Every structure is written in structure tokens, then in C-alpha cells.
């Protein structure tokens, strides 16, 4: 059973509009891409889309929160679960830049780290 979807490729400023026909395991046809990267972008987006998550966590006794990020992109369908998990963390100074504040978020194998030092 095949599906067709429209995607916008984000690899370069052209932003080619891709029309992709695919089934459960592979892309059957693709039009609209002006280079080969479009096809690999489409494959990633269709079968295992991921996104890096950036947000902030509260800091005990401070108004200014701590900015954090996932060290690698997490599965797109887990973004909001990850945000909920991250929101449960409260940190206290001192924190080093790059320090892990939540390991293996939502069992993705990916850590959440501080993107700013906290003195």
C-alpha cells in the first residue's frame, strides 16, 4: 500500500517541494528535488524523523532559568515527552557548560546538557 506526501527539503535555501510516494519500507518515487540530498532527506523524514530539542529548566532560588539542549536529535514523536521529563528537573548552581542535567531522556539514549554555565 503506497502513500504520497509533500515535504519541504531543508538542506539548502532552495527549499525544494518534494512529492514522495512511499510504502512501509522504501521510497517508490520522488519528484521536485534538484539534488540527491533531497531523496535522503525525504527518507529520514518519512521513516525516522528526529529533532534537536532546546528549552530551559528552572534554577532553585533564581529567576533566570538554565538553557539546555539534547546532545543529539530525538525521535520527533517523543519531543513533548522529553519536554515534560526535562521540566521535572530543577537545578542548583554551580553548573558547568555542557554538564549533563538529565541522562538518557525518555529512554532515547540521548542526554540533556546545560548550554550555559551557571555560577
Amino acid at each position, binding site marked *: 500500500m503506497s502513500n504520497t506526501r509533500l515535504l*519541504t*527539503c*531543508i538542506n*539548502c*535555501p*532552495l*527549499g525544494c517541494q518534494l512529492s514522495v510516494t512511499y510504502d512501509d519500507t522504501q521510497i517508490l518515487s520522488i519528484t521536485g528535488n*534538484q539534488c540527491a540530498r533531497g531523496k535522503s532527506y525525504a527518507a529520514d523524514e518519512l521513516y525516522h524523523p528526529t*529533532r*534537536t*530539542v*532546546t*528549552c*530551559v529548566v*528552572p534554577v532553585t532560588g533564581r*529567576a*533566570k*532559568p538554565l*538553557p539546555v*539542549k539534547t546532545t543529539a536529535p530525538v525521535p*520527533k514523536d517523543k519531543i513533548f515527552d522529553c*519536554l515534560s521529563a526535562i521540566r521535572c528537573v530543577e537545578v542548583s548552581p554551580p553548573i558547568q*557548560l555542557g554538564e549533563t542535567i538529565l541522562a538518557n531522556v525518555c529512554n532515547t539514549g540521548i542526554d540533556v546538557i546545560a*548550554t*550555559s*554555565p551557571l555560577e
Partner: protein
Amino acid sequence: MQKIDLLIIGGGPAGLAAAISAKKAGVENLLILERDAILGGILQQCIHNGFGLQIFSEELTGPEYAARYIAEAKEMEIPYLCNTMVIDITSKKHVTAVSKEQGVLFFEAKAIMLAMGCRERSRGALAIPGARPSGIYSAGTAQRFINLEGFLPGREVVILGSGDIGLIMARRMTYEGCKVKACVEIMPYSSGLTRNIVQCLDDYDIPLLLNHTVIDIKGKERLERVTIAEVDENRKPKPETATEIACDTLLLSVGLIPENELSLLAGISLSPVTGGPVVTGQLETTVPGIFAAGNVLHVHDLVDFVSAEAEAAGANAAAYIKGGADFSGKQVPVLDGTSVLGCVPQFLSYAQEMPPVQIMFRPTGVFEKKRICVWFDEVPVLASRIHRVLAPGEMAAIELPSALFADHPAPAFVKISLEEASFHV
């Protein structure tokens, strides 16, 4: 009255890179004045990633990018004062600053680096009619509230303007549990990066309403709803298309303006096209010894280019301070040609022996398969490779190599234009 060789106004990415570059070139008596509580400028509130791809070949968040330069500045023992705001500069390079701790400070500088960045266009500047309830913020103000001050500005959001700040805030507020109902854009295209349209709007099914604008605002004490309408080809609203969207928050992402009040006080000439100082190839303004770099000069899309520009400006300021740097050559204007807007620098101090000069500009629309061309008077002297796409949202650049100046006598003007792929010199 303190005597400083190089006074840097602004401790964001431009100020930091310029200071580091000037110190490396031998300037010891320098000082950064920063009005906020910490260094890093606007990067500190840009907690999303995408910074540093060009300079570090890494994808960093704003604070991480700032941390690199702050660490280097501290390691080099570059002096800086935070919570210190410059309130006056004169054409004689006398600077007045104020701080809660130290009161009023007076400086006499040999050279000044303008690195004040830019501010956001406001509702008043757009003259959006309607009531004036609370709940209306510029997108950057909302970003500061959420990311630096721990406040959520609202919960049901409409965003006016689809530039990158508006797109980033659409995702940011969605992440904080808000409902972003629409992103409203007056033009037929977004000026934001395609990557942001996909990852900030499409990912969360937030509609992008092109060719629309906000024509009324309703609410007594708090915003209750906005009226939007489609616009015609002259960007005028069509009243018959008006609809209302219930919301408690309206974020405005409608343009950035270089912050040049101080530059005007110093008698520096500004360009009406960029909103920033008119500068030479050395990034020196019309007041000798005052240089400019970063968003105060012209609004950039990538902080990597801000850092590169500021590094060059810092080295030029150092050469000026040490003396013997002759920037006085014949001033040749750089003009905006076909499809080009906002060339910086606006003048080249022409000499037969010149280092390469980079000219930055914005295309006036979205163009495919064009060459960037350099003209000396009405004669084309250089045509770039074919660029697959050029768009207003992505500042472009062309480098003029030294040979170009050695091989040609000084023209009356230099012009930059976009030409067809088939164009040849």
C-alpha cells in the same frame, strides 16, 4: 576622565570579536562597555541551535556560541564593565556612560567600536489600529521573558511576521504549552529560513497565512482577539476578508532596526537603506577613528558573519590606533545595482594596492540561477559563479580581489548587480 585607546560599545558577538581581534593586533588599553548584566548580547536569549555552522563547523545554541568568545576575552584579560550604559558619544570621541555602581563615567578614546546591535520594530511604528490592552509584545521581548526572566507572556498566541524571530517563538511557546493559532505574514513569502518554516510551523501544524496582516486589536485590559485580513498586491487590507482570531497574546516580528542613537549624537552619517552608519572598506564611519560592526551596521542573518565582520573591524581599529594606517585614499561610492539592496561598505578607500574587499548586500527578491556582478563605472569587471538561489532572507557577499584594483584605475563608482547565468564579463 579615563583615556582609552579602543572603547567598544556593546559586549555581544560583535563587540567581543572586535575586542579580541584588536588585542591580538596589539591594542592593550581597551575596554568593553555592556549595558546588560552579562556579556553575550542577544545570543544569551537565543537558546535554540543553528549558530556557528560556518565558523566552528558545529551547530551551537546562542549561549554556547557566546561562551566561546566570552572565554577567549576573559583568557586574554580584556577589560569589560557590565551594567554600564553609554549615553553619549561626541565627534571628538568623548564618551559618557552611566552605571548604578560607579555613577557617571567619562572617557576619551583614540578609537571607538560601535557594536550596539539592533532593536525590534514596534506596533507604534506599524500603526496597527485598535485598543491598547496588555498582551502585545515584540517577539524578542517575549523571548527574553521566557528564556532569561522565567515568565510566560501568555497562552493563546498569534504571531505577526514570519521572520526568523517570529518562527522561533512559535516553536518556543508551543514547547511551553501555549497554543499558537497562526503566523500572519503580509508578504507573499516568508523572509525566514525554510528550515524554520518546517521545524517551527509545519511540525506543529501552525498555519502560515501569507498575504495577511492584523487590522484591529480588541480587548479591554487584556488582549481578547485580533482581526486579520488578506491584503492586495499593494499590501492594502481587503476589508471583506476580515476574520477574528481569539487570543491573549500578540507577538510582533516585523523588522529589526540598527540601534544608532549614539551614532547620530556623534554626527555619524547613516544610510537610509541599511539604517546603519555609512562606512568604508575598513568599516570606518564618517567620523575618523569610529568603526562599526555587526547588527548596528546592518542586520545580519548569521552570527558567524557578524564575528568575521567584527574581527576585521577590530584589526582596522588597531591599525588606526597604532598610526600609519592611511585610510584616506580616494573615496569611491559602492552603488546598489539591479536586484541588489543595501551594499556594505558604501565607500571604498581606493588605492592601487589594496587587500581584498568583501561587499555584503541583500537581493531584492527570490532569484534562481544568477551571477553576482561587479561594475567599475558601466563596465562589468567581475562575475561570480552561478548561485542556485538568492533570497532577501539570506545576506549575500561578493569578494573583490586585490588584482581587480591593481588592474583598473579608480572608477567614479562601483556597482553590484545580479545578472543572468549567461552573463559574462
